[in-house]
Each structure stands twice: as C-alpha cells, then as structure tokens.
C-alpha cells in the first residue's frame, strides 16, 4: 500500500497559482453572475451537498422508523412523506445532476481543450433553475410535504391525496429544465468546442459517458415534464386523461413517466461510469482496455435505454406481449454494462496499480455495481420480477446501483479531481478510511434488503411483520456506519481547503488535458488553445513530456 503515484511539488516552495478561476474575481455577485463553468460547478457542488444531506437525513429517519416492526417513531402519514421527499430530493436534486453538473461541468471543457461550455449563460440559468426547484421542494416539505412517492402514480397523485402534489410537481418540472439545459450544453460543447486534434476517439471516456447521458437528458426529460403538466391539470381542473372514471388510462401516466424515469437511471449511472474509466486508467497507469468498446457501450446504453421503460410495469396489466418485448430489450441493455465491468477489470491486467482513495472508491463501485447490475437482471426477467418487484429487493437493487455505484463514483471523482478543483490535496489516510467505512456501511445497510425483498417485505411500509426485524436492524445499523462514511469526507475536504498540501498541476501523473494546466485552472482554462497530439490515456506521451521538461530545465 505504500507505493504511490502521487508526486507533489516541493511543499516549502510551492504556491497555489495567484491567478486562477477562484481568485480572479471576488464577492458573492461575481459567483452568482458568473459564466465560468468551473465556478458554476462549484456552485452546484455546494448546493448538491446541501440537498444530499437533507435527503440523507430523511433516509436516516426512514431507517430509524424501520428499526422496529411497529410505527412508533412517526405516524404512517409522516413516514410516507419522509420517504417521498427522500426519493424526490435524492433522485431529482442529487443523483440526476450529481456527477454531470459538478464534475462534468468542471471537466468537460478542460478535457476537450475548450475555454468554456458552449452556452455559459444557459449553464448559469440551469443552476438557478436547479436551486429554484430544490428550494421549492424544501418549501413543500416545510409546508406539509407530499406523500405520493417519487413516482407520482396516478390516480393516487391526482385524486386521492391532498398534500402538496402541485408544488412538488412544479419543483420536479423546474429541475427537469435545469437538467435539459445541462445536457444540451454538453452535447453542443462536445460537438463544437473540441480543440484541434481532439477527435472523437481521442476524447476521455468521461466525456463519452457524459455525451451519452446528455442525449438521454435532452430527449427523455420533456416527456416527464408533460406527464407532470397533465397531472397538474388533472388535479386542478379535472381533465380526464389519467382518470379511469372519465375514461382515461392511469397506465398512460406510467408509460410517460417511465419513458423518462427509466432513462433517468442511466443519466445517473453513465457519468459515474465515466469517472471510473478515468480513475482506473490513472491508478493502473494503463490505457483503458478496449477504449472503443467502452465508448460505444455508453452510447449503446443510451440508445437501448429508451426502449426498456415498461419493465417497471410488468405486473401492472400491460399487454403480455409488450412484457415479452420489453423484457428482451432489458436483457440487451444489461450487456453493455457487463462489457464495461470486464473492460475495467482487464485495464488492471499488467498495469502498475496503486491504491489511493479514488481507486478504493473505484473498487467499491465495481463490486457494488456488479451486484446492482446483476440483480437488475433478476428484475428485468419477467418471471422473477413478479415475485421481486415492489419489495425491498428493488430498493436494494436501486440503491446498489445508485448509492453503491453512482455515489461511490461521485466520491471517487470528487477525490480524484479535488486537487484540480481546489489546488490542494485531501488527506490521504483518513480518506482511505472513509472509503472503507462507506463500503462496509453500505453493504451492511443494503445487502440485508435483498433478503428482505426475497422474503417479500414490501417497499414503502412503515410497519412490517416481526420476523423481518433482524434484517431491518442490520440495515439500520449499517446506515449509521454509512452516515459516518459520508460525514467524514465533508469534514476533511473542508479542512483540506486551507490545510491540504499544494497539489501542483498533475499530482496523479494523469494524461487528461485537464491535468496539463495549472490547478486550480485559469478562468480561460488554458494559457493558449491546446492541441491534442496523442491518444487518450497515452502514458508514454506523458513520460516523454516529462523527459522533455527535465531536458529543457537541465
């Protein structure tokens, strides 16, 4: 464990560059009116963390309530509101924007050698929309909450609850536009702003993954927007489109909802996969095994992702033939994920591996995402879906992919690019500890839920039969550990802002263009437009560069 690739400049002489995007302008307004993608990424990071901890606190409440079989901590009504808000905040205000809006925003222009995203003002607008939506969601929670579940299933959401469905819907609608604008911005940037020499197949896989996710954002999100508009109209004036008593079909809502919300899980996971491609290459000093396969598997996930949505409705009375088709397509969409996992594994082969924190999170991701992905196949298979759907199995599956996969990837990315964003290193030992604690806590929390699901414990239950208690106690205990695992990074990362070691340009000896400029970067990213004259992940090129540098200095 002692070997490391970290090479920091001499701490006694090193200074954070005087001119960088953070110091360029001062004052709150210079942040609130900025067009700089890096500053917007920081704004996103701060607000995302805020929403993550609200969502996390709600998750804590859920786990506490489920410690005992009875509804003793809170009434069922409160419990319903708590898990609904947990879902809404975590899905729409954390997972969807997490990696794209922070790391993607910060890094895509840097990685492709551009000065900024193509539409800086739209980028800022998208942050404002995000914050407006988020605050509206918080306001909703403060003024009575909403208890429809994050899926807003009709006719429950239209006729049978009298909580704040409208404001929550509006919050999601607004957040949807934020996500559309982010995705649109990425696509335009990746198409039009690449620096000379940056061909499609020289782009880092992080950019490919974001490109795929952006396609989903742009094409999927508007469909959920119209579904929410129709729900709002149904609630306010009673149009009958989803109302069975007026001849509407409530399943149509689910079709429209899942047309977005299934691709949405790929919006969440694809950028995470992008992060993993970067870290695994850097820490094994090797080009990603099968670069093209990984790149195309991202696009394949995006394309197939649009054709599998009805697997959320297998038992809901859709046509059995449709079940066949959607189940088959679901099997197809599972394959690109398997391809990615194996390619990452073989990237390690004959590498020169070190185990810094981002790499530990990466291993966590690979293990947990493999489990999450494989259990997804259980649910995509129409037969077993009957038994497993709507139980804790699906909760566990979803959290393995989203928390075990996406959040691990997010933390891997945050640690990996922290030196680039702030110019300072995070403390290595304690962060390795945090990574291990997170991994252990996560498994304790969510693995028992697979068993609970197989036993048949339904999701969204405030109380449950007593024989499920043991596993629920395990889960709650694990959640406590997990909570510590998430608090630690907040503390030491904040600490490192002032006391961290100076990182220098390229502490990891990584090859991406973002590492070839100063940290934190200039507002214009590069002193001059860079030229990409080598393939992605070309460590020999990096060696040559270093030799040249030494030679020229000498």
């Amino acid at each position, binding site marked *: 464990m002692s070997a490391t690739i970290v090479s920091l400049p001499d701490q006694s002489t090193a200074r954070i560059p005087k001119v960088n995007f953070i110091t360029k302008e001062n004052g709150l307004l210079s942040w609130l009116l900025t067009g700089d993608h890096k500053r917007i990424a920081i704004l996103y990071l701060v607000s995302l963390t805020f929403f993550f901890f609200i969502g996390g606190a709600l998750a804590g409440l859920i786990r506490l309530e489920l410690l005992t079989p009875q509804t003793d901590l809170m009434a069922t009504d409160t419990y319903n509101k708590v898990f609904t808000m947990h879902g809404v905040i975590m899905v729409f205000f954390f997972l969807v924007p997490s990696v794209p809006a922070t790391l993607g925003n910060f890094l895509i222009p840097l990685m492709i050698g551009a000065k900024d995203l193509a539409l800086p003002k739209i980028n800022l607008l998208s942050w404002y929309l995000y914050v407006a939506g988020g605050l509206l969601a918080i306001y909703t929670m403060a003024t009575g909450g909403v208890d429809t579940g994050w899926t807003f299933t009709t006719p429950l959401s239209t006729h049978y609850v009298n909580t704040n469905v409208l404001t929550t819907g509006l919050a999601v609608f607004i957040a949807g536009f934020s996500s559309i604008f982010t995705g649109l911005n990425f696509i335009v940037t990746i*198409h*039009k702003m*690449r620096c000379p020499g940056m*061909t*499609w197949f020289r782009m880092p896989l992080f950019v490919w993954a974001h490109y795929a996710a952006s*396609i989903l954002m742009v*094409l999927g999100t508007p*469909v959920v927007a119209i579904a929410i508009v129709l729900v709002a109209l149904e609630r306010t004036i009673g149009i009958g489109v989803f109302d069975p008593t007026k001849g509407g079909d409530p399943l*149509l809502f689910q*079709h429209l909802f899942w*047309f977005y919300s299934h691709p949405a899980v790929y919006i969440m996971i694809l950028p995470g996969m992008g992060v993993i491609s970067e870290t695994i290459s850097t820490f094994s000093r090797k080009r990603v095994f099968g670069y093209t396969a990984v790149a195309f598997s991202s696009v394949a996930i995006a394309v197939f992702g*649009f*054709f599998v*949505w*009805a697997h959320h409705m297998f038992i809901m009375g*859709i*046509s*059995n*033939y*449709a079940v066949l*088709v959607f189940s088959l397509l679901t099997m197809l969409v599972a394959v690109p994920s398997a391809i990615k996992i194996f390619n990452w594994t073989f990237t390690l082969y004959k590498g020169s591996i070190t185990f810094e924190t981002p790499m530990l999170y990466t291993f966590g991701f690979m293990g947990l995402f493999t489990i999450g992905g494989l259990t997804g196949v259980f649910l995509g298979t129409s037969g077993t879906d009957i038994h497993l759907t709507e139980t804790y199995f699906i909760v566990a599956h979803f959290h393995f992919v989203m928390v075990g996969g996406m959040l691990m990837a997010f933390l891997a990315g945050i640690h990996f690019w922290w030196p680039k964003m702030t110019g300072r290193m995070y403390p290595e030992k304690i962060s390795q500890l945090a990574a291990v604690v997170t991994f252990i806590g996560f498994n304790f929390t969510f693995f028992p839920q697979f068993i609970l699901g197989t036993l048949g414990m339904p999701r969204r239950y405030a109380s449950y039969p007593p024989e499920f208690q043991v596993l629920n106690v395990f889960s709650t205990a694990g959640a406590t550990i997990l909570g510590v695992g998430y608090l630690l990074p907040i503390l030491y990362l904040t600490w490192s802002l002032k006391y961290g070691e100076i990182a220098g340009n390229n502490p990891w000896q990584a090859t991406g263009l973002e590492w070839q400029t100063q940290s934190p970067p200039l507002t214009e990213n590069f002193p001059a437009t860079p030229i990409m004259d080598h393939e992605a992940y070309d460590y020999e090129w990096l060696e040559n560069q270093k030799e040249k540098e030494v030679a020229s200095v000498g």
Partner: protein
Amino acid sequence: MTDQKEMHESQHHIVSPVTYAIVFGALLVFTALTVGASYVEMGIFNPIAAILIACIKAMIVVLFFMHVKYSSKLTKLTVFCGLFTFLALIGMTLADYISRAWGQW
C-alpha cells in the same frame, strides 16, 4: 475531424426568396387539399390522407424554411434523432395498447 469541415459546409447558404415563395405556395395548396379531403368520405383513408399531407407540409417546412436541406450532416442527424425518439415513444406505447386485446389472459 469532420466537424471542422462540417462547420464550413454549413457556411451560410442563403435561401432565395423565390424558394420561400414556392414553399409558401405549396403549403397553401396542401392546406387547401387537406381541408378539401376532409369533406370527402374516404373511410380509412381520411386520416391517412390528412396525416400524409401534414407530414409533407412539415417536411417542406423543415427542409426549406428551417434550412435543413442546406445544413450540415449533424443537423440532419439531429432532426432524425428527434423523429426517431418521437416515433419510439408513440410506437412502443401504442404497441402495449394494441396488443392488450390480443389473446386471452
């Protein structure tokens, strides 16, 4: 790569007002045609004719008014993508509704 070339390909091709006028005329003719067709009893072909005419109208608006005919491959691909996903949404959803009545479950 090709993008640099694309950029130059998409260099402003200014569509002449004559083309616009012809397109405008065609749109008017098609509008008259579709209104007229709706008064004729054609059975199943009534909606088909109406949709077909609407598609033609939309196509010429996209090609000429929106300059797609003179635009880069990327724009054409974008239009195609939109159309594809739109049809996927409608087609796959309708597939469920149509096949619900099949067989006895």
